[in-house]
């Protein structure tokens, strides 16, 4: 997947949820990015779900960010549905960015246009307490 480098992301706090499929070392758990943009695609799939979000950068160019999430097994237990978001929705996604500098992150939280905030999974299933 090729994406334009650069982003209008903001560095935030620290969160370290568990991941399931692969090593989490690709992501910098000490940083967060806040992506305010428009959903391009949301894939509801095992073992991972992912969101692509178009985020305008400081030059006004739209940058395609990839955000990976855990599986629907856990998302539905945190209140998600396959149609929670769809292409064209305005969202705010917070994630830990990939260390390579590419516009990609691992999911921390999602804020919908109506203000609802969704996380990945309950603490008893590996989420952050």
């Amino acid at each position: 997947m090729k994406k334009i480098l650069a982003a209008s992301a903001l560095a935030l706090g620290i969160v370290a949820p568990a991941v399931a499929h692969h090593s989490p070392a690709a992501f910098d758990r000490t940083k967060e990015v806040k992506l305010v943009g428009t959903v391009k695609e949301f894939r509801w799939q095992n073992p991972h779900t992912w969101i692509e979000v178009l985020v305008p950068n400081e030059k006004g160019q739209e940058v395609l960010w990839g955000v990976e999430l855990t599986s629907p097994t856990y998302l539905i237990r945190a209140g998600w549905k396959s149609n929670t978001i769809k292409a064209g929705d305005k969202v705010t996604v917070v994630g830990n960015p990939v260390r390579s500098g590419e516009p990609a992150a691992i999911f921390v939280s999602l804020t919908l246009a109506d203000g609802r905030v969704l996380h990945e999974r309950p603490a008893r299933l590996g989420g952050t307490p």
Partner: protein
Amino acid sequence: MTRSTIRRVTTGACMALSLAVGPYLSAQAPAPPAVTIPTPPLSALAPANLAKPRPAPPFTMTGNWFIQGGVPGGGWLFGRTPAVLPKLTPAAQQHFDAYAKAAAEGKVYRDDIGNCWPAGLPVIMTRVWPIAMVQLPTAIYMISGFMNSLRIVYLDGRTHTDPDIVVRTFNGESIGRWEGDTLVVDTRNFIDDPHHWVDQGVPGSGDLRIVERFRMINDGKTLEADITLIDPKNWVGEWKGTRRWNRVDDIDIEEVSCLPDLNEHLQSTSSGVHVK
């Protein structure tokens, strides 16, 4: 020459040839020895095996279980926390040093699981996924929600398969026996494959042996195992740790496969931070 004449001549020639070389052939090519075909054990699902009289087990592991993490006795990897990493052999130490260097540089070392290689034992038991277990008198079937990896623990008294015929695997061959209130599972016959890891930067060889002592605690809500790992090709002595799994009654495993096109959308498996 008529057809019947040709047939008579041909038949006669064959008989003469047979009489001439027959004794020679039988003297030079004795009958080959019979092929030995082993008798496989009775299947764990055979009614005759299931019906054999056996003492009642002290507990059943039938249920869905989820690794307990973030607390003493927990941990997502078999790993170094809280257990102490054993003294590695020089060959294994090279891998671990490369892993540590990559980690210090914010890179990922040999993430084979992320690239669709099986996690294998012991890592498959500590993935952040539920494990469905079905216990019968003869075997326990464990199916991880992670890639639906299958592990079978045989309880019917069979021994480990002859090394000359066993098919070595990432989860190995598990044979269990009851000792009082404990299920002791001895797993051997692992695959000798460079993609089988015991932990990040710590490989497992074909000589890996894992002994797990399972107990049911917390009124049947928690499964606990003291685990001993032995692999003289990769570390010295026994590497011990304890892990727990909580019963989860509101979750079932689902079909999960490693999908190459999905991986292309996951920076954790496709970005430039990987050390192959």
